[in-house]
């Protein structure tokens, strides 16, 4: 079996964000981390590989040379077998083109499972996995909190409104990871050393035979939402009830 798994870098959620001069993205000089949902996807791929002898795991990142570092340290150092960087200018790609780049890689690699994060915590679009599944004509199981693979099928429990849904998908399929899927392991020192020697391919978008590299969605401007002001601290429950009643008229 072969599993393709994502390694996307995102700005640290605790970083102070500044809007870039052109107003279209954030200033680039922030700390970056591996997208938390990709950590869950990577952990899931490793667990499936551990339970199924002969499984090959491949991490893919789309971006610049910096992205390569996240593929190595975030994925290969944790135990993923090899890495692929697809060079792309992140300013010039949208979810749709990312999905088509994945499609191009899938056509080269023929994986049984593509495991992505349910969302990227910068763009927060929650689209790539679903777009990819439709481009490939594959079944999908998004927002996974449990994945079991056997006999060419995956049984996936999904976190949905109202509770937990379980689907059985016939492979090949796209699965997107939710945060409760697992506890991502840390890379060991040995893992970090080994990662440096693992196979690593660099591809250009042109290598992927896409029909075009046009985007469909553009961020034309960013703004800061109007904030909330802190209110008052009440001294006890009685004052809270009184304020909620006569001032806020909320109860």
């Amino acid at each position: 079996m072969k599993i393709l798994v994502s390694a996307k870098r995102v700005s640290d959620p605790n970083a102070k964000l500044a809007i870039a001069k052109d107003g279209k993205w954030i200033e680039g000089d922030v700390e970056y981390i591996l997208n938390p949902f990709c950590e869950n996807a990577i952990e899931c791929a490793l667990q499936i590989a551990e339970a199924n002898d002969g499984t090959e795991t491949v991490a893919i990142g789309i971006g610049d040379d910096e992205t390569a570092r996240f593929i190595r340290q975030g994925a290969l150092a944790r135990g993923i077998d090899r890495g692929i960087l697809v060079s792309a200018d992140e300013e010039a790609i949208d979810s749709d083109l990312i999905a088509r780049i994945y499609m191009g890689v899938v056509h080269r690699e023929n994986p049984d499972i593509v495991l992505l994060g349910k969302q990227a915590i910068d763009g927060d679009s929650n689209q790539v996995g679903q777009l990819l599944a439709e481009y490939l004509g594959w079944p999908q199981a998004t927002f996974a909190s449990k994945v079991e693979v056997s006999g060419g099928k995956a049984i996936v429990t999904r976190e949905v409104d109202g509770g937990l849904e379980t689907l059985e998908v016939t492979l090949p399929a796209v699965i997107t990871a939710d945060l409760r899927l697992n506890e991502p392991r840390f890379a060991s020192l040995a893992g970090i050393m080994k990662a440096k020697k693992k196979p690593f391919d660099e591809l250009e978008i042109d290598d992927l035979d896409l029909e075009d590299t046009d985007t469909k969605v553009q961020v034309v401007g960013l703004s800061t939402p109007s904030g909330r002001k802190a209110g008052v601290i009440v001294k006890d429950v009685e004052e809270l009830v009184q304020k909620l009643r006569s001032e806020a008229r909320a109860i």
Partner: protein
Amino acid sequence: MSKVLILAEHDKGALKKVTLNTLAFARQYVAKFGGSYDFAVLGHNVAGVAEALRSYGAGVVHLVDHADLAHPIASAWAKVLADLAKSIGADIVVGPASTTGKDVLPRVAVRLGAGMASEIVSLTDGGAFRRPMWAGNLMGDVKITTANKVISVRASAFDAAEATGGQSPVTAFASDAGLATARVKFVSFDGVQSTRPDLTEAAVVVAGGRGLKDKFGAVTEPLADVLGAAIGASRAAVDDGFAPNDYQIGQTGKVVAPQLYFAIAISGAVQHLAGMKNSKVIVAINKNPDEPIFKVADYGLVADAFVAVPELTAQIKTLRG
């Protein structure tokens, strides 16, 4: 002139309010760009949902009632929705950013060659779609450059649209969704049993955090009972098993904007704030005065929740007689 196709959301044969929030966006869109809107009702034994939508001013309520659509399997629903959009010449498909909408709509976009904008909260004067990014720390204005467009709508950002009277016709649309479900099988649904209002529809939300530990229910339920409130939770409370996943509020859970929100023993991480900071009135009860939740709360009470919340519950009960 635009033709908008709105995906209706329903649960066990009843229309869900998020459909009407989504409709509010569609009406704004049509007011700005001209055109009309239709509804798409997909499912099995859902004629009642179509009937309920007839008085909302749609050109047509399209009903696709089929056993293969009983569960919202994304590949099947997307095929039907895209086929329907093509057959009626819809250039924009919109749906709520519920888990179903998030699952299905991107696939519709691929089928229509459309760009998609997720979780939009408003239409800007310049006609761009405004949406929260980075857990709502920044708002992004996005333009879709394709002729066809797909939009998921953050329900909490739009007041539910009112009925306008009239009787839109209900038209059946034939589906061959079976093909698209061939490699997906629905196994089971483990639903949260609750007689409380839906979290995204409730006027009052009582949310608890990790600090409540195994007394999560004992603290939140009585207060929710006296207020007729829905119960929500932080991710940490769900992770630790004190509340079901359906309760999670935040960047990766539900987004709510009730009249009144109680954050009890919740620290106020950015990812939690992303799901509730547009509530009208926010009350924070926390024993640590330095927590960030107090920066967004209208009323803060520094207290032990195990003592304060039962007291609060009792006082509101007395007040209400």
